[in-house]
């Protein structure tokens, strides 16, 4: 997995006056990968993208694109193209002129026939062949987004930057577009860098996800990595959902850690590394790792159901007990009929396998 980097951020910090939007970012973007910046608004993900595009310049550190330091290089001289959140299509030009705009800026200017051919090919790629003569406002939101995409990829950028491109689409369309984007990326072999606050979007499309928190990188990894091996409570909470149980380390048992919950309940949890006894930790337990069994099941913890939420493909139970506190469990549809129609107030046993919980030391 040793692919050459197409872009790099080296100790990049961006400050606006007293506000630090991004702090000490270190990141290598690999040739041909699909990388997402994921985080809530104000976490610095858009700032990172805009520094790659050249709309913002790093206050400290170096930004490299294709092996060249691009600090101070204006956007029009960078070999990257962006799909904007609100598409930013030129309203006074038709679709074809929008798509051809980038090629038209090249010097020497390519011949008109060549531009027309490239534009046609790009439109075909986004399944808008024949729409070249349309005005922008005659297009639907989804179509406008494809135009924005075509306008960027027609230039064969080294990196395609996508700034929350699906935020304005409705859910169904967004899902279709995600699949389409991913296959387009495979087809073109261009590096895609996406900014999003939608974890599902990031997880479903990306080769790697960079999770941001308050201007810093919280964790970088494959979607599976982030889901199964989060390094902090923040990541565990942001990627998927999790139950968090504050605990204290008792000792190690092989590669597992033994810990005690607030009321002395014993847990055995996975841990990224050895932990000293007495360390304050948080145990992260995914709702789908919690199983519900009849009261009295071996290794079960007695809990009471406080809420039942039917969600179609699965049912969500909110459980409560003095020893554990609050716990969310999801039962997939058809998994276990008995665990499906439990009523609020019922006493049940909550189970999880050893090593289901993960010990996290950081917030």
């Amino acid at each position: 997995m040793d692919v050459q980097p197409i872009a790099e951020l080296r100790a990049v910090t961006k400050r606006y006056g007293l506000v630090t939007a991004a702090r000490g970012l270190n990141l290598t973007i690999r040739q041909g990968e699909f990388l997402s910046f994921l985080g809530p608004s104000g976490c610095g993900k858009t700032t990172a993208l805009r520094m790659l595009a050249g709309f913002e310049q790093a206050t400290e550190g170096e930004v490299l694109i294709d092996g060249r330091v691009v600090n101070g290089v204006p956007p029009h001289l960078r070999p990257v193209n962006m799909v904007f959140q609100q598409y930013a299509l030129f309203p006074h030009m038709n679709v074809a002129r929008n798509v051809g705009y980038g090629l038209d800026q090249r010097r020497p200017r390519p011949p008109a026939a060549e531009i027309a051919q490239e534009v046609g090919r790009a439109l075909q790629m986004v399944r808008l062949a024949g729409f070249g003569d349309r005005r922008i406002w005659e297009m639907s939101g989804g179509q406008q987004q494809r135009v924005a995409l075509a306008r960027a990829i027609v230039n064969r950028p080294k990196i395609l930057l996508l700034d929350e491109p699906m935020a304005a689409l409705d859910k169904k369309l967004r899902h279709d577009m995600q699949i389409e984007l991913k296959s387009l990326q495979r087809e073109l072999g261009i590096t895609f860098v996406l900014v999003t606050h939608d974890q599902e979007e990031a997880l479903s499309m990306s080769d790697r996800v960079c999770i941001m928190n308050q201007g810093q990188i919280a964790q970088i990894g494959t979607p599976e990595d982030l889901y199964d091996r989060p390094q902090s409570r923040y990541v565990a909470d942001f990627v998927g959902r999790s139950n968090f149980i504050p605990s204290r380390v008792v000792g190690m048992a092989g590669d597992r850690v033994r810990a005690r919950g607030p009321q002395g309940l014993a847990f055995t949890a996975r841990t990224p590394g050895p932990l000293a006894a007495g360390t304050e930790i948080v145990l992260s337990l995914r709702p789908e790792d919690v199983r519900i069994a009849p009261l009295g099941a071996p290794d079960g913890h007695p809990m009471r159901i406080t809420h039942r939420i039917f969600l179609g493909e699965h049912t969500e139970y909110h459980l409560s007990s003095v020893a554990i506190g609050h716990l969310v469990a999801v039962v997939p549809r058809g998994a276990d009929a008995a665990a499906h129609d439990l009523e609020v107030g019922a006493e049940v046993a909550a189970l999880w396998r050893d090593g289901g919980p993960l010990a996290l030391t950081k917030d």
Partner: protein
Amino acid sequence: MRLYVLSVYLFLYIPIGIIALFSFNAGRHAAQFTGFSTQWYGKALNNPFVLEALKTSFAVALASALLATICGTLAAIALQGIRGWMRMVYDALIYMAVMVPGIVIGIATLITLVTVFGTLNPLLAAIFGGETPPQLGLGKGSLIAAHGLFTMALVVVIVRARLQGMDRTLLEAAADLGAPPMRSFVQITLPQIAPAVLAGFLLAFTFSFDDFIVAFFVAGSETTLPIYIFSSIRRGVTPEINAIGAMVMAASLVLLIAAQMILRPRKR
């Protein structure tokens, strides 16, 4: 409430309506309506003094509106780049130019021009010498300058509003696609603000064409249409004056409505 609004509008527009009405008066006195006729329009349009004044007004309005549009648009674009208290100062100055009474602008421009001419004319005489050295004086030039100056503020305000409403990411998109700043200005900004520029031009033209007060001070020996009307009125109001007034008003209205139509947000 509705009655109140109605009476305000009546108060504003009845005098204007009466002027238009009496311009169709057959008799030669402005005070009593004796019958319908369009003869006064013909008389007005055949009056060489009226035509001469109209020509002056038109030339001055065209030149000053062009000047105001070019300078005002450039100023509006430059002001976009200014932030903080400096911007507040410039904004205040521009709005002041719109609000200051015409008579103040007229007197101030007159004093300034006379002072400048008084300083420059001896210099010109010294440089060129001879019997008739070139001399600066009040006339079309000073009219164009004065009108251009106060209508420029209007253009700035209109173009600024449009610039602020313009999607800034369009410029980012153009830059991202490889357009250097000057090219994205020509290809993206100008087409986006074109309606405001045109509307600003029409408004500037109308204001200059209709202006009496400023023109009265700086026109020198030139006679614009409003100045002609004013001097005619001193000899008594005739239906001919009413006809001229009605025509000027109609032309101004057409231009103002055109400006409004251009500025109306396009439906998406």
